[in-house]
Each structure stands twice: as structure tokens, then as C-alpha cells.
């Protein structure tokens, strides 16, 4: 029996406002296998970030059942079953790189020597060993985001939740970090739920791409990329990759895109 990292059945989210209820998410059916990389893609307001926040138990679901490794989302949060990274790095500016990576470990009472060893390991993993004593304001955006990823991985979570973590970065850094992320995800064997705006990013990273649509936020399509385990620069130029990008684009727009637009 395969273990599910995330299992959502009929999940919905309603935000009550002064002008009546706003349905942010409705009837979400989604399973993410352990170790699987799944991207959520869709236009603004399609509820992809909302879904991620529900999985992270940052907001409660209004309806349906949501299980993380077979537990309710709130239990999974308390048990630290997932690590999370947001669009902004969200580092504490008064802590060094090492201090920021150590934050979750410190909060959960890991002893100092073990903590130092783990921080060194994580810094190595994201390639920031020389920068552990720097402060966030001394780092570039891409480096800050790598610190945030290291922090998310600190507790060796089996599930990584990422909300447009590369959204604010330039294209070069973005592609580099995408490559790094696939490597890290493969190394750690963690399942990843990755929210993004970018079709190529979703295709390059994912085993499956979940296409979402707004008003009300819902899942309209789930595409398997079937691009295998190696995600390198060669893949970005392969016909299979382009073909999947087109497929996701068509799923997003709902109609076949004319050939001329693809070139």
C-alpha cells in the first residue's frame, strides 16, 4: 500500500466577508504520494495558495477531509511533518544564516552540538557553507531563498510545502534554484507541493501538475509529466518538455493554443 503524503477529499474553503461568503476553494480531490513532486498552477485567485495554507494548517478547511500522512492537518503541523517556504524568504533579519536555519531546531529543543552539526549539513546542502555567519541583508535574494529552503528542510520533513518560492527571483537564479530543488527533493526523498505561476517551472520540477481555475477556486485538470527522474538543463530543451509545457498551457486556457503561439 502506497503511503499518501497528502490526501484531500472534498476540501473547500469559504472566507466570510461583510459582503457575504467568498468561496476560495471548492471540492478539491487530490492525493500526493510520498516522495512525489506536485505543482499547483493557475491564475491569481484560483486558490492554489489557499490550498497550500490548508495543508499547512495555517487556515482551517471549511469542508471535506484533509489528511497529511494519514493524520489531520493540525496534528501533522504539531508533529512537524512538513517544512515550508514562502515567496519571500521570511528570514529573521537579526539572525545569521546559521541562526535562521537553526530556528526550528532551537524551538524544538535540539541540543546545541547536534544543532550545529545539522546546520552545517544543511548549509552544505544548499551551498552556503561560507556564508553561515552573514546576516540576511548581506545576501542576494537567491541566497536568502536558499537559506529559507535549508530552514524548511531542517527537521528532515517528508513533505515540503512551497508557495512560489522563486517568484521574486530573476530568471537565471530561478533556473539554477529549480535544478537545486529537484536534486534536494531527490536526495531527501521528500514529497513536495509546489505553488507556482510559471508553466515551464511547474513542468520542469513536477511529476504531476495540478491545474486550477478561479471563481470558485477548484482543480480542473491533473497532468502527469512523465519526464523521469533526471531534471537537468538538457531537459529544458527536449521535445518531451515542450510538449508537456504545451499540454499544461492548453489545460490552463481550456482550449488548444494555436501552433504559431508556441514558437
Amino acid at each position, binding site marked *: 500500500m502506497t503511503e499518501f503524503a497528502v490526501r484531500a477529499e472534498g476540501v473547500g474553503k469559504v472566507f466570510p466577508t461583510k459582503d457575504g461568503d467568498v468561496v476560495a476553494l471548492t471540492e478539491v480531490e487530490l492525493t500526493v504520494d510520498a516522495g512525489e513532486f506536485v505543482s499547483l498552477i493557475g491564475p491569481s485567485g484560483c486558490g492554489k495558495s489557499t490550498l497550500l495554507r490548508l495543508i499547512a494548517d495555517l487556515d482551517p478547511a471549511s469542508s471535506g477531509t484533509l489528511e497529511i500522512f494519514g493524520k489531520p492537518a493540525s496534528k501533522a503541523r504539531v508533529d512537524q511533518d512538513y517544512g515550508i517556504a514562502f515567496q519571500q524568504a521570511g528570514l*529573521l533579519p537579526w539572525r545569521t544564516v546559521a541562526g535562521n536555519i537553526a530556528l526550528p531546531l532551537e*524551538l524544538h529543543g535540539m541540543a546545541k552540538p547536534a544543532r550545529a552539526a545539522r546546520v552545517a549539513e544543511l548549509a552544505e546542502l544548499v551551498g552556503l557553507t561560507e556564508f553561515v555567519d552573514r546576516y540576511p*541583508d548581506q545576501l542576494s*535574494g537567491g541566497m536568502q531563498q536558499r537559506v529559507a529552503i535549508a530552514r524548511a528542510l531542517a527537521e528532515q520533513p517528508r513533505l515540503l510545502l512551497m508557495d512560489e518560492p522563486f517568484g521574486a527571483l530573476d530568471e537565471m537564479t530561478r533556473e539554477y534554484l529549480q535544478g537545486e530543488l529537484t536534486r534536494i527533493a531527490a536526495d531527501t526523498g521528500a514529497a513536495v507541493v509546489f505553488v507556482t505561476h510559471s508553466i515551464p517551472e511547474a513542468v520542469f520540477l513536477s511529476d504531476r501538475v495540478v491545474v486550477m481555475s478561479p471563481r470558485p477556486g477548484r482543480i480542473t485538470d491533473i497532468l502527469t509529466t512523465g519526464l523521469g527522474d533526471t531534471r537537468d538543463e538538457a531537459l529544458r530543451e527536449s521535445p518531451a518538455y515542450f510538449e508537456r509545457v504545451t499540454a499544461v498551457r492548453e489545460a490552463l486556457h481550456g482550449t488548444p493554443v494555436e501552433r504559431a503561439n508556441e514558437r
Partner: protein
Amino acid sequence: MTRQRAAIAWGVLGVVAIMVIWEVYKFLGPAEGFVVGAITGQTGSGVMLLPRTNDRAMPHIWEMVARLFQSTSGGDTPPLIVPVVTAGLLTLGIAAVGWLIGVSVGALLGLVMQRWRLAEWGLLPWIVVSQTVPLIAFAPIVNSIGTQIDRGGTPWPQWLSVALIASYLAFFPVAVGVLRGLEAPDRIHLDLMRTYAAGYWPTLLRLRLPAAVPHLLPALRLAAASAVVGAVVAEVSIGMRGGIGRMLIQLAGQGSSDPAAPWGPTFGSIALGLVAAGSVALIGFGLKNYRRGEATA
């Protein structure tokens, strides 16, 4: 570095400008002032539009400074600066106690208001209103309560009343600063702490307090200046001896015969405010890592 130098230059320039204005007006203004509608033979009648510039009303700055080094009240008494410094140190000590009380109470109020929104609604208006009560009205009440307690057997020295009154001014900026500071963390940081399943205390310690530092430092500095003002005023209004407030009043009373003398304790109290605010700036120096801003990605 250049910005620091510029700040110093502007500060010096400001002081020099005040001295120049003082001396220029003293030189140009009418010795007996300019009075409209005075009735001859009736002192104090009419409206004075320009103040007197004679040596009794406006001593020269160099006379004020020189007076500091002349004997306090003739004979063998030490130069004026000695009692000014002694009195200043006493007042500074009392102000420091007042500051500590004010900071503790203010911080506690800030914490409570941040923790429970209801407490903020209930307390904040009262805290604001409290600052509209004039110290002069409030000081004698504190003093008489202190005297009652003292008579009741529990020793209550007069300086404690002064410190308490000083704390009444000092707690206000701290309460507001702590409240604003604790609410300063970004949404993303609070979310992050929630994903770590961190409760109130770990969040307070590792996120809210460090994030509050940039709001806290100006509040502490303001509180220090307020504590000094409060201590000086309280000394005067409850008549405590030995402090710089009392000295100020005493020498001002003898101003017509010794016009430069009251300026001694005046400079003394200015120095007190500077020392108090400066000491707090030192705290800020130790906390400078908490004032870093995160460059946006």
C-alpha cells in the same frame, strides 16, 4: 560616518545659533524692554512686547558659565558647579529609579495589551488620558499618600514619591512602544512560527521581542527624558531638598541679586536629560543586530 559627522555638526550649529540669538538680542533690544499702555508710576502695568535686556534679566552667556566656577554663596563655599553636580546626580539617581519603574510598568501594560485585544481596548484610552493629568496636580497626592504610608510604619522616603511621579511620565512611551513593537512582526514570520507549532512564549521570545527592538529604543529614550523632567518637576512641587529642581527654584528666587546663578542648575538639568537619553543610546548600541532590515528578495 559622514552622516554621523553631519549630525554632530548640526547639533553644534543649533546650540551656537541659540547663543548668538541670545547675545544679539541682548545687544540690540531695549534695556527696559518695550511696554505698551503702561501707566506712569504703576509698576507692572501695560503689556510687555519685548523683554528686558539688562544684565539682571539677561546675563551674558560668559557670565553664566563663569558663575559656575565662582563660590556658591560667598565665603568659603565651593564653586557653584559642585552643588549643581551633586544635586544633579541625586536627581539622576531618582530619575533612573523612576525610569526603571516606568519601563517595567509600561512593558507589562504593553505585553498585556498585545496579548489580549480586549485589554488594549480597555486600557489604551486610559493610558492616553493619564498623560493629560498635570503633574503639578498629581504630585502632592502621591506625596501625601507616601507620607501616610511612612507614618503607618512602612518607611517611605520622599525620593520614592519623586521617583514614582517620574515613572508616571516614563511609562507612557514604553507602553505604547512595546505594544506597537510586539505587533511589528510580519505576517509571514507569524505564519512560520505557527508552522513550527511554537506557542505564545517561544514566539514572544524569539520573534516578537527581537522584532520590537526598533520600536523599543526610541520609547526607552523618550522615557529617560520624561523621567528626568518628571523628577525635576516632582522635586519642586513636593518640595524635596537636595535635588536639582529644588536648587533651581531656590536660585531663581535670588535671581535679582545674582542673575547668572539660576543658569547653573538650568544647565545642570539640560545635562541630566542628555546623560539620561545618551545612556539609553548605549543600550541601543548593544542591540544593533536587531535593527537590521531584511533586504527584499
